[in-house]
């Protein structure tokens, strides 16, 4: 786990190049505090900040293949590196280190760009082929590790985080309105777009080659795929699939426990993280070190379930108690890490928790992230199922009442008022035939935040059709998939890759130099789950049915049967104490600052601030708008306004 940065192509090296690399990699110190390395040769510059986890002694980067013809810097883990190494050694390759990194250069030498298909891991890779003078960038299948790139000054520049690019290319510090509109609708910018104009995010499962002649070739090497609806399931029986799944999950956990430092785990109290901890015990970790967050508010707190699991598994457990004040205090730091607006504060407690993990002497944690996407755990999937069922008979007096079984955990539940729930959930039923039907209610609620944009940006938002945008990103064969498969695909590509794995995943863990690992996102698990018939995942309105059955023998019955409770934290209310906003909130949302930034309508923001101040924001719409606006203003303040203020100290910008 680490940070990487560099450039390739074009102009001859200059004395400034080394300084650029050093400036870039210095901004990624939090990702890799243990060592730093730079490689510079004609046509390429590579820089690396290392968090030592595997091969502590000889795993330094940049690393080459022994002859200097293939170089790499790499962030993440190749979990099957031991198997790949044995295979490569049989083929005559000689290894000089014990690292997983060295597998990459030899595998590329043997298989070319297809090397990436053999990797089981979470990775962002930059690889330089000195003989062919080409650069290859690759990103893992699910989108766990970040990789950004931009064309500027006649080169392709790349880095783990945007701030590293801005350190060498201050001219790229311009907010992209399209990225902002996407973030306010889908909870994060949609790759390749980012919040910064011209800066692109390499999409998950993709490989980008920059050839010697300057051509860029983008290839998708892997994607979530599903069988055609109604196709015969390739399983002898449900029970056999349950056994296979348990074995596969155990193997995924076994591989992800590989490290030369101790591995801990997050324990939320739900099925997924409890299952991972139980599997880690099965894999031979007698006493797992676990960590969780607790809250004051019973609506968010899960300490009882966490304690039940701690007792059952005998883990050594640490809780971090998170107050509203803690969230407000840490929010500006969060946004410096996410480099994108957030609509919820939920990433903050996880950032504070990774700090606790670090203080406890751990560098790596397993988490249950991904199970809800892979095994259909979210209420959104159930909601879509009921709404599809209802849309067949829109006049039915009772079909919509099934919705009453969802959202019981919310203090202000949309189904708490059945008379209105019917009218509310009936909205969007006219989109029943569209592939993105399941996500219309969420995008509609999130999109309410767009109403606060300044007039010129609002025109841009009005021209944006989120439904058509996401439909354009579906693969052609998606039209033949079962509805649940399409719902899962959309979820994996929009919310999971764009927000959960980024703002609420990599960024909040790496903020404290902690590596998160996600056994449910082992691509073998995803491929297995995608072949399952939809009703083995969502059975009636019971989510993650097959996963429950697979984990049942390892867990107390109350955990295995527990209905999913989404992880949430107090939102707008965190930023006010006795009716007063935190100082920085009052300053950033003041009419003058809003006007200067030019992104939002000062009068509207003033009204929202007042509503939140008096505790009147109860629904998701207002809360998400408030958190979204505040995070965007913090981003603007950090990456644009303050950079402008210090611009004279930076060297003059070059040209393409």
């Amino acid at each position, binding site marked *: 786990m680490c940070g990487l940065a560099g450039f390739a192509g074009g102009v001859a090296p200059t004395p400034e190049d080394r300084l650029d690399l050093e400036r870039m990699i210095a901004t990624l110190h939090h990702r890799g505090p243990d060592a730093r390395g730079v490689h510079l040769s004609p046509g390429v510059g590579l820089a690396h900040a290392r968090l030592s986890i595997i091969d502590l002694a000889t795993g330094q980067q940049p690393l080459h293949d022994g002859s200097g013809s293939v170089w790499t810097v790499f962030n993440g883990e190749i979990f099957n590196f031991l198997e790949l190494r044995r295979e490569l050694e049989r083929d005559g390759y000689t290894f000089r280190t014990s690292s997983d990194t060295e597998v990459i250069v030899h595998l590329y030498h043997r298989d070319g760009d297809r090397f990436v298909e053999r990797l089981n891991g979470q990775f962002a890779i930059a690889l330089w082929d000195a003989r062919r003078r080409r650069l290859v960038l690759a990103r893992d299948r699910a989108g766990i590790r970040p990789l950004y790139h931009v064309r500027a000054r006649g080169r392709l520049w790349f880095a783990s985080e945007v701030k590293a690019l801005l350190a060498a290319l201050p001219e790229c510090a311009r907010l992209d309105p399209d990225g902002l509109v996407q973030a306010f609708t889908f909870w994060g910018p949609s790759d390749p777009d980012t919040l910064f104009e011209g800066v692109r995010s390499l999409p998950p499962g993709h490989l980008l080659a920059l050839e010697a002649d300057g051509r860029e070739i983008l290839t998708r090497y892997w994607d979530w795929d599903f069988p055609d609806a109604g196709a015969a399931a390739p399983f002898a029986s449900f029970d056999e699939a349950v056994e296979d799944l348990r074995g596969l999950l155990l193997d995924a956990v076994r591989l992800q426990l590989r490290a030369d430092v101790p591995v801990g785990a997050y324990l939320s109290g739900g099925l997924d993280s409890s299952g991972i901890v139980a599997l880690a015990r099965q894999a031979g970790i007698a006493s797992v070190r676990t960590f969780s967050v607790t809250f004051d508010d019973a609506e968010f707190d899960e300490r009882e379930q966490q304690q039940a699991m701690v007792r059952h598994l005998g883990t050594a457990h640490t809780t971090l108690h998170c107050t509203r004040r803690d969230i407000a205090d840490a929010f500006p730091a969060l946004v410096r890490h996410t480099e994108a607006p957030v609509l919820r504060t939920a990433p903050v407690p996880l950032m504070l928790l990774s700090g606790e993990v670090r203080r406890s002497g751990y560098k790596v944690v397993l988490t249950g992230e991904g199970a809800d996407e892979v095994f259909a755990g979210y209420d959104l999937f159930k909601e879509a199922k009921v709404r599809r069922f209802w849309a067949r008979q829109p006049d039915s007096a009772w079909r919509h009442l099934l919705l009453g079984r969802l959202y019981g955990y*919310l203090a*202000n*539940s*949309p189904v*708490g*008022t059945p*008379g*209105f729930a019917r*009218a*509310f959930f009936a*909205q969007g039923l006219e989109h029943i035939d569209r592939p993105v039907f399941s996500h219309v*209610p969420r995008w*509609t*609620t999130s999109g*309410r935040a767009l*109403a*606060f944009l300044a007039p010129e940006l609002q025109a841009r938002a009005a021209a944006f059709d989120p439904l058509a945008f996401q439909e354009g990103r579906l693969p052609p064969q998606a039209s033949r998939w079962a509805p649940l498969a399409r719902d899962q695909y959309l979820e994996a590509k929009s919310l999971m890759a764009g927000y959960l794995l980024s703002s609420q995943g990599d960024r909040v863990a790496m903020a404290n130099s902690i590596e998160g690992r996600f056994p449910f996102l082992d691509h073998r698990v995803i491929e297995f789950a995608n072949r399952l018939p939809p009703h083995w995942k969502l059975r009636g309105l019971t989510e993650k049915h097959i996963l429950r059955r697979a984990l049942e023998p390892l867990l107390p019955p109350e955990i295995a049967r527990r209905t999913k409770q989404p992880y949430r934290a107090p939102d707008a209310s965190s930023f006010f104490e006795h009716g007063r906003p935190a100082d920085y909130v009052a300053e950033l949302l003041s009419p003058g600052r809003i006007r200067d930034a030019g992104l939002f309508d000062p*009068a*509207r923001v003033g*009204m*929202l601030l007042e*509503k939140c101040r008096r505790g*009147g924001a*109860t*629904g*998701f*719409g*207002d809360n998400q708008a408030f958190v979204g606006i505040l995070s965007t203003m913090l981003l603007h303040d950090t990456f644009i306004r303050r950079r402008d203020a210090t611009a004279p100290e930076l060297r003059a910008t070059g040209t393409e």
Partner: protein
Amino acid sequence: MTEQAIREKIRGHILENMMFTDDPSRLPDDASLLEMGIIDSTGVLELVLLMEENFAMKVQDAAIIPENFDSVDRMVSFVMRSKSA
């Protein structure tokens, strides 16, 4: 409280706290709040609170239906009916 005062209170609240605008022309009294996207999934609870806090009334669960809440006109009639009951 007169019908006019009740209407102004309801309109003022919706304009300022749910539409975040000071332009009264954006809220026709007979417009559906659901169709205009003014009420989100939990927005109706805010309207119930508005009534209970300002008009000294208790709204029964069974009364929380679009017929009573989905426009300014409907809310005003609902308050007036409740008061005369």
